[in-house]
């Protein structure tokens, strides 16, 4: 079997809900660990940093930091997290509880249809304008109304009337429906950061821009760091915001430099020679070498990111049996062990395995080529039928070749179509007719919050458009009804049962996807770097404020 290079996230080809595979690297034994692990040995001395400023943190990444406007950045929030803040923030590595951030207190009314947030006093944006209730209203309204934004994440129809400025420090959201975990929803990294409305308004080029072009490279938030310089594809430098509300009494870094280094071996070399302090992604051999090197610490933890092949359900694969057949024709065990080299987790369904409400049941259809052949026949798919799978350069090629080989054994001729990133986006989110589009799409996705509705609606609801993420134009009435029932519901036993039923439909009965793998987050840092923490919802970002260099 072909061995692949497990780091497949070429920096220039990151996708929306991008696969920050974080190297998809680690050891087979670790890959199946249910929770994060840390390898550490603080007794060994980390490499000499030479003339480097010890108060500057150098982080190596394999992806490029570019769009820094929170209203339109849905790709990778790494560059947003040091600059912007949300009203609440997930507590440590817990995906279900939040702590104060820009809001110091909050409460819901009895039926959870209205939430009131009390804002922290005395906060200013980096441009000196006050962060107050009016600013929250304007910032959220901008995100909801931006045509290329993340309107859906707030679930607000009319922000002008639904967001009420009670007083300077109090803002109320009249949601129009019960939303019992709204305080958790506003902690998301996608669409919930507060950007200066003054900066956005002053630099707006019209209703289709709303200041986005400016904020993309001139971000103005309230966060602990300001952007000092940005060279997309090369580096980004963040400098401590002296007016940050939390103060700087604790051990911290004055500057954080993020360097884009596409080659894993280079990132390892720079760590080993003291030129850098951390890396967010590595290939297995480099990761293993550094894990065994006592001068470094490694965090290896599951994420909520799933890589998958989406089925176009409006073409040749309209019959669920045809999709079941393809699902039977992918050997996950062999793939994870021999191709992914154990650097990723085997998925259990289309949903992330650790999502609240899901049981441990393996819903994947087992590898069974005989069964696949029989299902194809039942679906009326003739031998020699040609299918097309699209992917963008560097992401999905190996998986496509494997699927191609296995499908060939059951008489399906799978054509692989490698596209440029923009061409792929056109096809994936585009409105083309079924016969003009591929039959299969390779992609990855993660939820905004730990809740099935956040993950499922845009991807699987019959009401979701192609540009919402429903590339396969999947529409199953029962699944759509279940998704609607899960909307904003607390995960009671009843809701969990509905969620599991949904997972059964989407994975087994009427497959929307063939899930391929579940990614893991792997950070390597020098052992004198303190405060590295990972929350699986906050994919591949760092809480830079709490990082420091120890002794």
């Amino acid at each position, binding site marked *: 079997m072909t061995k692949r290079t497990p780091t497949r996230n070429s920096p220039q080809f990151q996708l929306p809900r991008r696969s920050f595979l974080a190297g998809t690297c680690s050891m087979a034994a670790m890959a199946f660990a249910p929770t994060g692990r840390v390898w550490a040995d603080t007794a060994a001395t980390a490499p000499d940093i030479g003339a480097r400023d010890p108060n500057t943190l150098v982080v190596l990444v394999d992806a490029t930091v570019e769009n820094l406007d929170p209203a339109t950045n849905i790709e990778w929030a790494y560059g947003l997290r040091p600059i912007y803040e949300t009203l609440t923030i997930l507590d440590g590595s817990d995906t279900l509880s939040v702590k104060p951030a820009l809001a110091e207190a909050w409460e819901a009314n009895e039926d959870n249809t209205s939430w009131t947030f009390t804002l922290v006093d005395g906060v200013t944006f980096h441009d000196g304008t006050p962060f107050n209730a009016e600013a929250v209203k304007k910032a959220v309204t901008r995100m909801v109304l931006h045509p290329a934004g993340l309107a859906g994440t707030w679930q607000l129809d009319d922000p002008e009337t639904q967001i009420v400025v009670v007083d300077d420090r109090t803002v109320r959201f009249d949601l129009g429906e019960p939303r019992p975990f709204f305080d958790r929803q506003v902690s998301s990294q996608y669409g919930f950061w507060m950007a200066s409305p003054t900066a956005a308004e002053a630099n707006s080029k019209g209703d289709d821009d709303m200041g986005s072009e400016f904020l993309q490279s001139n971000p103005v938030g309230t966060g602990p760091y300001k952007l000092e310089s940005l*060279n997309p594809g090369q580096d980004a430098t963040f400098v401590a915001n002296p007016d940050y509300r939390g103060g700087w009494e604790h051990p911290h870094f004055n500057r954080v430099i993020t360097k884009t280094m596409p080659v894993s071996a280079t990132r390892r070399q720079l760590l080993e020679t003291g030129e850098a302090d951390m890396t967010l992604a590595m290939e297995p051999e480099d990761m293993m070498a550094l894990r065994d090197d006592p001068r470094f610490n490694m965090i290896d933890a599951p994420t909520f990111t799933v890589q998958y092949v989406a089925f176009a359900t409006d073409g040749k694969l309209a019959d669920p049996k045809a999709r079941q057949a393809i699902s039977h024709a992918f050997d996950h065990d062999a793939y994870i062990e021999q191709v992914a080299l154990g650097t990723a987790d085997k998925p259990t369904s289309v949903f992330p395995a650790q999502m609240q409400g899901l049981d441990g049941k393996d819903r994947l259809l087992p590898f069974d080529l005989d069964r696949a052949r029989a299902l194809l026949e039942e679906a009326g798919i003739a031998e020699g039928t040609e299918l097309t799978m699209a992917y963008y350069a560097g992401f999905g090629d190996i998986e496509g070749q494997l699927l191609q080989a296995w499908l060939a054994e059951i008489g399906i001729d799978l054509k692989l179509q490698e596209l440029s990133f923009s061409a792929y986006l056109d096809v994936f989110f585009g409105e083309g007719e079924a016969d003009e589009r591929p039959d299969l799409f390779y992609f990855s996705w993660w939820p905004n919050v730990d809740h099935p509705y956040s993950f499922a609606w845009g991807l699987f609801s019959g009401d979701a458009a192609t540009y919402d993420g429903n590339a396969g134009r999947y529409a199953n009435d029962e699944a759509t009804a279940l998704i609607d029932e899960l909307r904003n519901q607390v995960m009671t036993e009843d809701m969990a049962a509905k969620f599991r039923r949904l997972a059964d439909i989407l994975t087994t009965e009427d497959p929307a996807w063939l899930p391929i793998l579940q990614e893991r987050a792997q950070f390597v840092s020098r052992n004198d770097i303190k405060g590295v923490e990972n929350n699986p919802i906050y994919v591949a970002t760092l809480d830079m404020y709490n990082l420091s260099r120890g002794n």
Partner: protein
Amino acid sequence: MLRFILRRAIATTILIGGVVLMTFALARLLPGDPARLIAGARADADAVAAVRERLGLDDPVGMQFLTYVSNVMEGDFGRSVVTRRPISEDIVTFFPATLELVLLAACISLVLGALLGVLAAVRSGTPSDVGVRGVAVLGLSVPDFWLALVFQLLFFATLGLLPFGGRLGTGVTPPDFVTGFMTLDSLLAGRFDLLVDALKHMILPVTVLAIPSMAITIRVVRTTMLEVLSQDFIRTARSKGIRPVRVYLRHALRNALLPIVTIFGLNTGLLISGAVFIELIFDWPGLGRYTANAIASSDYNAIMAITLVVSIAYTLINFLVDLSYSLLDPRVKLS
């Protein structure tokens, strides 16, 4: 001379016009919608349409071309979807970094290549000749990206003598941007520490870039010198008792200069486009790395602009080479 310059200027204008047309056509023929890329992946159809209208991408192709040409004439190449800045600004930022590398590499390869070529020619058939020819063959045979990696492994990772890459050490604040040449700007700022740091960072990429060009120069100089050295006027010079060094450098080398200058011009042009790998490997923030990012991100406006800028640079270098012929050899008449 004036007529020659005028004729070349007209030809160059036509050539550049052709390049503009070709790059424009290619960018329009390639799959992928720039409006989608700019609007964002999750933008709905209306948002993408709005961007398309704002950028004039739904105008007839002829109109788009005219708009593009008129913008280019004003130095406006549009905005990069990667850096989200005006591309002209990006080129001003990144091109000097590449030029600094390329010019130094070209000069080093010229001087060393000429010296070694002369040495091989005057000692033809001796071990020195064989050795120099071996160096030339090796320099041409070894891929530069491989050499770059080996040099990094040896001089950075193993010996720790030279930095891995970049233009300055990590976290070091660069001097104010004046010329874009880190060495010159460091000098202008009176920062000799930065100058030393910049030079240390240039050693590996310049060496790797210079080696193949030097190898070509060696071969050309050797062949040309051998040809010149067999001519009657050299025999005459020798018989007049002129010192050998003077014969080689004043008589022979001078007559062998035309092909050397031609090779220098071609090499410099090739180095600009060949710097992509080297800049990627050595983390050099120049036009090469910018180009790689633009290609990877389907940043068509940037690709078109870079193609145009490199074409102009290449044309200009060749024009200067042509001009230099008449200066080097009075027998050459430019008209």
